[in-house]
């Protein structure tokens, strides 16, 4: 019984203005609530955990550096091809504290080096799903503990998945990875290194990927619907954003001179690709969506949907297991059992069937004798 987006209550973007005829003198003052929320949140600070996954050489680190305008990967060591033949997937966390206009953000990037790099990649996503589950479990324990003052939220809020632009669409490893994770984390698929595709090719590839995502039943992160009272411009932008997925991105660690300005870009003999030029790639759309407008929604969906699903599943498993073991391991108070024991049920069923069979045999023999008499 997995919850889906839309089934649980999410905070409305703009509150409906109640039409009333309260005059100025009867001003109560709760209209300042948004400001109070703003003040408190600035004081508390924010945190966000972003996971990046994809084969080596897709430009993941470069994109992260471009998104957050820092250099997270200063002393990274890359493996040789022979070392990668039997490589297993590691999970590496980088945490940085960044601040902008008084707003503090604790940003955690979860890297997955080794994904898809070995010759045999069977179940190479298992370390990743295990990691996500571990974070859920940790939060679950903390949430159910006695002292809940300083809970650290290490749950993964978003996973950027990098699809290689060299193929004709999704490959089996892409499909398997996304299917293993789509009910645990918000997946945002991206077309990596998009500067190897002409605009026509990008459009074809996006259409093909969207088709295949539908075909294989992969549930990627859906942007929430616009409220009906937003202005037309916003709605138009929102529509464009949705039709643009999966985003085709380009990243860069270097600054180049283009059209008289210094911008992040890539210098080629035939021209300069500008990372922040919307006609070159969808980097700006991704950044706006990820950081400027939907960061909080990603966190909400993680908390309200993915985590709740995990929690419900966990509790169900625990109660059925504990009934058999009869041991108290967790600090959580156990609800009275309503589900019968699975094993005894099975036994009962078996005995029932045996009885039925014997009854049938008896009947048959009696019938035979009856026939023979006649």
């Amino acid at each position, binding site marked *: 019984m997995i919850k889906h987006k839309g089934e649980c209550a999410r905070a409305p973007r703009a509150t409906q203005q109640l039409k009333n005829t309260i005059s100025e003198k009867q001003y109560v003052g709760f209209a300042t609530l948004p400001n109070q929320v703003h003040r408190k949140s600035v004081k508390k600070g924010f945190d966000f955990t972003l996971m990046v996954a994809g084969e080596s050489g897709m430009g993941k680190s470069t994109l992260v550096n471009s998104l957050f305008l820092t250099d997270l990967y200063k002393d990274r060591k890359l493996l040789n091809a022979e070392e990668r033949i039997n490589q297993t997937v590691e999970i590496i966390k980088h945490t940085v504290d960044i601040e902008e206009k008084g707003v503090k953000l604790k940003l955690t990037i979860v890297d997955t080096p080794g994904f898809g790099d070995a010759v045999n990649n*069977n179940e190479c996503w298992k370390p990743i799903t295990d990691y996500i589950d571990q974070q859920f479990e940790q939060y679950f324990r903390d949430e159910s503990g006695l002292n809940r003052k300083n809970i650290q939220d290490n749950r993964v809020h978003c996973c950027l998945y990098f699809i290689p632009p060299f193929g*004709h669409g999704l490959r089996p490893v892409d499909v398997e990875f996304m299917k293993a994770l789509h009910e645990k984390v918000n997946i945002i698929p991206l077309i990596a290194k998009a500067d190897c595709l002409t605009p026509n090719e990008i459009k074809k590839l996006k259409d093909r990927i969207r088709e295949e995502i539908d075909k294989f039943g992969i549930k990627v992160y859906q942007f929430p619907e616009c409220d009906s009272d937003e202005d037309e411009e916003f709605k138009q932008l929102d529509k464009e954003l949705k039709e643009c997925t999966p985003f085709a991105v380009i990243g860069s660690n270097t600054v180049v001179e283009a059209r008289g300005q210094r911008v992040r870009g890539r210098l080629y003999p035939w021209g300069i690709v500008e990372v922040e030029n919307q006609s070159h790639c969808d980097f700006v759309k991704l950044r706006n969506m990820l950081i400027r407008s939907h960061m909080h929604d990603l966190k909400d969906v993680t908390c309200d949907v993915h985590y709740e699903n995990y929690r419900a599943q966990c509790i169900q498993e625990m109660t059925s297991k504990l009934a058999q073991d009869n041991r108290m391991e967790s600090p959580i108070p156990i609800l009275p059992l309503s589900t019968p024991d699975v094993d005894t049920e099975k036994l009962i069923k078996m005995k029932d069937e045996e009885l039925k069979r014997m009854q049938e045999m008896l009947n048959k023999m009696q019938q035979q004798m009856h026939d023979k008499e006649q």
Partner: protein
Amino acid sequence: FTSNEEKRNLSLGGHVGFDSLPEQLVSKSVTQGFCFNILCVGETGIGKSTLMNTLFNTMFENEEASHYQNGVYLRPRTYDLQESNVRLKLTIVDTVGFGDQINKEDSYKPIVDYIDTQFENYLQEELKIKRSLFNYHDTRIHICLYFIAPTGHSLKSLDLVTMKKLDSKVNIIPIIAKADTISKSELHKFKIKIMSELVSNGVQIYQFPTDDETVSEINASMNAHLPFAVVGSVEEVKVGNKAVRARQYPWGVVQVENESHCDFVKLREMLIRVNMEDLREQTHARHYELYRRCKLEEMGFKDTDPDSEPFSLQETYEAKRKEFLGDLQRKEEEMRQMFVNKVKETEAELKDKERELHEKFEQLKRMHQEEKKKVEDKRGYLEEEMNAFNKRKAAAETLSLSQPVKKDKDKKK
């Protein structure tokens, strides 16, 4: 009998005319036509078909491959091309499904098998009693173009494993595909990294020959540019007042034949215009000979026997044949035995089953008899009771007949 074995150089008194020998050779080979076989190895969508179209300036028919093949398949296609008066029988072999599977441990096998099969076919033709080698369509792979994905870091693990399996069987030229996604500085680092990984893992790639002075200089300089970073395109874009093959991006136009944009021209020079014949020679003289030697050694042929006397192919062949026939007979006997045993077993089983069924039937019959007897007894008993009851009834009736009135009166109450 004396003979002076030393070679002497004589000078000619006039023009004899054997300096036309190369021309005679050339004219003969032009009449025969040439044959060239290219194997393209690379992941789906990396640009193999587009590059072939661009190299040979023609549109070979091709459907887009799917990513969901179960394994790797080799797809050979043969085309007849002609340029001036030279005819070329070109075979392009594609690896379909390469790099798509989640477990790629066996991906190299179909490729190695295909190459070996072509060698085997040639060997068989060579060993025939009545052979026609001049007429034979040589399908041995002359060159393997290995397409490396432009990640900018290094080779993929699959690339390394595959090239190591192929380097002793075929001439390999590694190329960097879709090179318009790598900037100049990244490309330089990438090429160095790839070559160093190949060297440190002992992968032998094809070296353009430097023994012939007419081409040694250009070949030597080309060797330093490996792996070639190529871009392919069949579409034309107007640049200046010419239409050139290129890729049009919002930020510029990548021209395929512009040497400062990519190494396509270098690849074409090396592959087609300068070294095609050398590639064919190397395939025959080195890779094929190696295969042939291994195969014949496997079969038990040697060049000299333990006494250092040259072996007769004939004798060895006869011995091998006898051995083989003996093996065959033995296998036949084994199989016959197995079959007879199996038949016996099944017979025994069936007999057992028959016996079981018979027993069961007897048992059931017995039970049935018992039940019948019981039922009969009961019936007898019931009949007795019935008789007894009837007797009593009759007795009661006669009694009531002798006192009718009283009874009726009682009844009416």
